[in-house]
């Protein structure tokens, strides 16, 4: 299945905009993603292993938080996962 990597996180995923993984469940897919790209882990997860609150994960077009099995939801090859962080454009803080 395809995992879409949002622009702010592409630098931690080898500059790719999408990554292919083979997985049986959603959490399996994410765990394969962070194993292949360890730098992504701290941007996606807190120290105690929870998905960060400003990052949303969608399976196809549904927010994972609202799926009955949440991250244990089964996934198939044609599915896509989207990681959507909050963005707010450009206040110049430099």
């Amino acid at each position, binding site marked *: 299945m395809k995992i879409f990597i949002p*622009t702010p996180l592409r630098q931690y995923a080898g500059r790719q905009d999408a990554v292919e993984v083979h997985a049986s469940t959603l959490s399996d897919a994410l765990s394969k993603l962070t194993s292949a790209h360890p730098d992504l882990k701290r941007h996606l997860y807190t120290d105690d292993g929870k998905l960060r*609150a*400003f990052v949303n994960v969608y399976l196809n*077009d549904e927010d994972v938080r609202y799926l009955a099995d949440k991250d244990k939801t089964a996934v198939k090859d044609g599915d896509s996962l989207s990681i959507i962080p909050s963005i707010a454009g450009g206040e*110049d803080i430099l």
Partner: protein
Amino acid sequence: MATSTLVSNALSKDEILRYSRHLIMPEVGMEGQQKLKAARVLCIGTGGLGSPLALYLAAAGVGTLGLVDFDVVDFTNLQRQIIHSTSDVGRKKLDSAADKIGAINPYVEIERFDTRLSSDNALQIIRDFDIVVDGTDNFPTRYLVNDACVLSGKPNVYGSIFRFEGQASVFATQQGPCYRCLYPEPPPPGLVPSCAEGGVLGILPGLIGIIQATEAIKLILGAGDPLIGRLLLVDALGMRFRELKLRKNADCPVCGSNRTINELIDYQQFCGIRGEEAPATTALPEIQPEELKRRLDAGEDIFVLDVREPHEYQICNLNGHLIPLGDLPKRMNELDSSREIVAHCRSGVRSGKAVDFLRQAGFRKVKNLSGGILAWADKVDPRMPKY
């Protein structure tokens, strides 16, 4: 929606001719155009998103536009903030924007708010408008606008951008979700780069701002399918538009059934900005550009480390050894810790992080070039281009 008698929103012969292309469509017609004229839309920000937004809402005949902006037009804004022109650099954005809106459509009433939107003024300002369009550029204001809209019962037409991707939606309607339903918490400061650090494709706020204008007009007219409960994702490089479902979070602290936020809070604190430790750069060893120049000219053995990206090196450089900040951990072996190292970037922020990192890795002779290559251009070499 503000209710006014049809008489006061009656269209003059001049307006009827002006809006003829709207009037000949049944989806708008005289009734729709009068709704536009009666409408009061608040545009928060007259920058990247606000530029196309305000221009198109004015062209469409929105009767009253509120503009909120405290900022001044900067030269680097012109690449994307098309409501401002070269001769406006240095002027207040509010004045520049009002001039262009008036030139496009003198029938638009403009209400200016020369202020930073804050918890002290947001509710009062928003109260007199029907729809709020959020064109701001920072997280604390996003949450402020969201909460103020939910508390005031005004729809919040949301748009945001980063580099070449954007998002758009309509929040804070009765049935629909709000911004907090999507993102209950902001990212910690420093985790998501701003346009100044990350850059932005000039056209991108144009694309997203127009989508916001479209949604505002649809809400006014009561036409089409607004982006309520829908997050539109735009990838300008791939020219792909995707849509994700947004749900109202029943436990949302501001729009849920058990509301816990009943008044506006300190959003800077919420976003972790106030009360933060002083940035690492102030505690790090620094060198001023003039001193670096003096010591290089005197032939001292100083290793200049440039932690910017290759495309920045092309713009201007100090002949430094280029290791982009992100690559520093794995390319540290290119550095000799027995030599004196001066790290620099564009303005001193990234190189500050590099110096911090290297010191923690045991480097004792590393300093940060204060103000970066921009300060070098200011104080040492005026021929050097700034960017």
